[in-house]
């Protein structure tokens, strides 16, 4: 009996020890959370399996090989109504990437301009830029897209009365879309492209060599202008020598519509303009904050070292401002990619529209399709954040 008693009391104290021990507690909480999550997953899985069975549907990616019976109004890679769902997925991805890419380039340029204007010493210009930011960033993007589409691009004139952008007869805007000349490379155009590639490498080598020489001897070499000269001059020379092997296919009005050239639909223009104008606000704010983050003492110090204003800007201010600007800038690019999915609202066939809406409605494979679309966006996101981390490592302050 005594043994049992002692065992019981001993157990009691060791039990309270176990209960109050942080390590055991944390193990217990983790097991609890894990069990709850697993149970929830199992619950959802069994429900889904049951529901799928009740609807007579099968799970799996086999449907990707079957033909999609619908047409897509715009695609960069060739697509016909009989192609497979997998091809639809690729069409959607390329359309999304095209829209995102051109929007990112344009929005970055516009954002930098507005950000610099906000810091202008001219009161009126600064006010104008700040009201641009305030008004556009406090209005929903989707509303802006609809506004551009319904109030501007959907009521454009017919091709016969098209609006001639720039007045050169090259860029035409009408209710079928925006028409612009398309380059048609000739026989030897590949040579020019190869030269361009070689020239970029050469310019990089020159820049590295110039920096090394300056570090060693202190002598400066105009690497920037030499680089520009190589990159522009060499391909131009090859281009002219091979007999200008590049023609432009210019859109021309034939009958009721334009023939030739390349075009994007009005929905593309509406989403593009709305994305650029909306995201430029955010980039402008980042640029402004980044420039303000470099203290004026840096400029003064650089002047007192004898650097000229241009060099001060290039060697002292911009590198430090970029350290503050680039991380939020890149996450803003990610937002452009994500927000390009709003193109669905005006009928531009991006990934979400062709795959998550049309294909999902036709094939009914909700889980697989949702997973594939999310996988694409996650891949883009992880790629971008990987690049961001690499950049951060490159430019972060080297502290002792």
């Amino acid at each position, binding site marked *: 009996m005594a043994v049992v008693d002692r065992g019981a009391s001993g157990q009691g104290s060791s039990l309270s020890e176990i209960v109050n021990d942080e390590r055991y507690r944390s193990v217990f909480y983790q097991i609890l959370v894990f069990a709850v999550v697993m149970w929830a997953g199992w619950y959802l899985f069994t*429900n889904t399996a049951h529901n799928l069975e009740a609807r007579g549907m099968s799970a799996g990616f086999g449907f990707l090989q079957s033909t999609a019976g619908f047409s897509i109004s715009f695609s960069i890679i060739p697509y016909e109504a009989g192609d497979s769902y997998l091809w639809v997925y690729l069409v959607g991805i390329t359309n999304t990437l095209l829209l995102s890419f051109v929007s990112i380039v344009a929005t970055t340029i516009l954002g930098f301009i507005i950000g610099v204007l906000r810091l202008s010493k*001219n009161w009126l210009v600064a006010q*104008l830029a700040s009201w641009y930011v305030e008004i556009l960033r406090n209005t*929903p993007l989707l509303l802006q897209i*609809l506004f551009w589409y319904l109030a501007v691009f959907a009521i454009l004139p017919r091709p016969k009365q098209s609006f001639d952008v720039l007045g050169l007869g090259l860029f035409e805007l009408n209710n079928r879309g925006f028409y612009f000349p398309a380059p048609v490379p000739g026989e030897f155009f590949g040579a020019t492209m190869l030269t361009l590639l070689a020239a970029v490498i050469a310019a990089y080598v020159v820049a590295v060599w110039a920096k090394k020489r300056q570090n060693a001897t202190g002598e400066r070499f105009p690497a920037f202008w030499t680089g520009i000269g190589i990159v522009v001059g060499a391909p131009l020379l090859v281009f002219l020598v091979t007999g200008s092997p590049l023609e432009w296919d210019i859109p021309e009005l034939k009958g009721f519509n334009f023939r030739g050239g390349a075009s994007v639909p009005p929905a593309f223009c509406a989403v593009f303009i709305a994305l650029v104008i909306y995201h430029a606000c955010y980039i402008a704010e980042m640029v402004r904050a980044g420039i303000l983050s470099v203290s004026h003492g840096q400029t003064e110090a650089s002047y007192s070292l004898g650097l000229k204003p241009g060099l001060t800007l290039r060697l002292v201010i911009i590198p430090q401002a970029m350290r503050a600007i680039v991380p939020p800038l890149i996450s803003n690019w990610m937002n452009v990619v994500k927000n390009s999915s709003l193109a*669905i609202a005006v009928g531009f066939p991006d990934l979400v529209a062709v795959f998550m809406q049309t294909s999902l409605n036709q094939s009914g494979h909700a889980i697989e399709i*949702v997973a594939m*679309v999310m996988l694409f966006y996650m891949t883009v996101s992880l790629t971008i954040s990987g690049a961001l981390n690499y950049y951060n490592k490159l430019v972060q302050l080297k502290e002792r």
Partner: protein
Amino acid sequence: MANLDASSSDVTFKPKPSLPPPPNTVGAVGWVRKNLFSSPLNAFLTLLSLYVIWVLVSNVFDWAILNAVWEAETRRECLDKVGLSGACWAGVSHWMKNFIYGRYPDTDVWRINLGFGTLILWMAPFWFPRVTGKIAIGASAILISPFLLGYLFAGGEKGLFLQLMISIAITSFIFSWLHVLVCLGTGNTLRNVIVSMTGFAAKPDSAQKYPVIGLFVALAVVVFALQAGWQLEEQNTNLWGGLFVTLVISGIGIAVSLPAGIVLALGRRSKMPIIRVFCVAFIELFRSVPLITVLFMAVTMVPLFLPEAINPVKIVQAIIAVCIFSSAYMAETVRGGLQAIPKGQYEAAQALGLSYWKMMTLIVMPQALKLMIPNIVGSFIGLLKDTTLVSIVGLYDLLLMLKAVSQNPQWNGIHTEPLFFGAMLYFVLCFIMSKYSQHLERTLGAGQVRK
């Protein structure tokens, strides 16, 4: 030498009074010269900006006010009068009721007004500086009011649980306001007044809570008896729409995302690997995909995930999606705030022997939340704007209502006016929120500024 002589004598140096600044560097003229015309480039930019402002303002003014038609029955009438050169505001004013309440029946619109009015009154004590116990009032407004408001909006049969919660909600509302009135009138708290009136003042502290609880329960029983016979007609959620739905979805999104975001952020910074992995996976998954895919996921997959008997209505699916999405974003906002708290604060709390939750609720969170206010309000503004996406899955929120006007035969093709009106409405809402957050930042951060 001459200087020395001068200083040795009794002549004192008297400076002449300084001249006034040149007239063109002070006053309005000086300001204009300095800020607008300091250089040829600036002068050019000023003129260019003036031109841009003139073009924008005059065109918008002509269209929206000068040539606008305010009274008309159909769009045809507007077009006959001014064509496309003026806005047809008649279309907007005819649809104003739908923009705000959706297709909710006219006879029952008072329920929505009453619901939002109650909520505003419930929150109002936050702006009275003399009121104490704001956290309890705020918690009751967020946790208990949804039952009352939800019933006001939806109506229908009341189960026993709902009856109980409605009674508690009404009682807490009455109690909060009694407390507020006592605070404003006497500077005392309701608790102390009740305790002294019932003669419990001499009793020990632990016994003093009984009369308060007793009074609450008694009042709740009375309210319960009164509300038993009260029933509202059921209003299908299909009829909900307009600004009402926008505010319901974003309101629930805000109320859920803040606590959920705090929990997720704490989980992400936790030392327990399994909890951390789950939190990181959740946050990163939903932050890396667009909201529209989460909405589609909710609409297509929630019916698959749930047992066949449960068939959630679309607005619930949308709310689930919005809550999941905004929680993931809020978690990152909160994490930013937590990271800004110096490690010394954690260590000091641990050195005092505080447990994890006490450390978080008493030391870390109050400081972190104060730092995060601009970002939290920024997330709320983003959420309000993102709510427009529910229109893509077919919920008649404000945006889809604005778009629907043009499908009406009478107002066929009227796009610009309703969208312009909606843009102004959203702008006012978001702008007020952002200005208020700046104000909060200044008042709450007063202790942070070094003088």
